[in-house]
């Protein structure tokens, strides 16, 4: 599961470099998130820009990641695809996560962190 983290003092952007978070990789996703969360800043943004699809197992793994970080730290989502947005809306998780729809809202942050 290819996840990459970029951390500044107050924020970690985790980029999912996969097209799916589904039942076939949900455990790997959760394990990798657990590793990355150890070093993560107070605010963690999961960049889903490359993810086309998540199923309920993938969503469960994202929720589990949020719970790993709580209560001191928060997990936010960025750049959900239309399919991911639909899953979040139908499961009402869109009211649980802060979701950044606009790539530009995170991209400057990510590139600043990478620079």
């Amino acid at each position, binding site marked *: 599961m290819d996840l990459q983290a970029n951390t500044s003092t107050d924020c970690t952007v985790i980029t999912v470099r996969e097209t799916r978070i589904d039942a076939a990789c949900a455990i790997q996703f959760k394990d990798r998130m657990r590793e990355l969360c150890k070093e993560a800043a107070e605010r963690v943004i999961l960049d889903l820009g490359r993810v086309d699809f998540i199923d*309920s197992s993938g969503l469960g793994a994202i929720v*589990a990641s*949020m719970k790993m970080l709580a209560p001191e730290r928060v997990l936010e989502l960025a750049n959900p695809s239309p*399919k991911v947005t*639909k*899953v979040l809306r*139908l*499961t009402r998780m869109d*009211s*649980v996560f802060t979701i950044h729809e606009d790539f530009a809202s995170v991209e400057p942050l990510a590139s600043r962190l990478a620079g």
Partner: protein
Amino acid sequence: MMQSTLGPGQRLRNGKAVELEIPSDPLAVRQALARIMEEVSALALAVDAQATVEIVLAEVLNNVVEHACAGLSGRRIAITIAPTPTGLQCQVRDNGRPLPDGALPAGDPPDPACRTPELAEGGFGWLLIRGLARGLRYRRTGGMNVLSFSLDLHTAA
């Protein structure tokens, strides 16, 4: 986009059903979904309707793998998807265990107001299926689970 040979999507577009049989395995489900979405792509559906197809089939197939067939070896899943005037008629059959109580789970929505530590990590599957599929019917026959439903793809979900 015109295709001169019987490529992906030709069956559905010509009113014929797509049939697949796969082993009960998460990677096989992923491959089957890719194949189905390739077939469905030629129907030129809106992105939202494509999402409906992939979400419902993913959840139905994952349920079979993770519940009906969990821990059982050599189980198979058969999928039939047929075009209808308004969308798709789907049937999924497997030779796993019957549904508990022989009935479909309710799929109650999780309570987003609950505090983070109590927030459920599962139970989203039936919520998605019930929210998107129409005419859900389950029966157990000849040692097989048979789930059928339709997907309305020409109106807003």
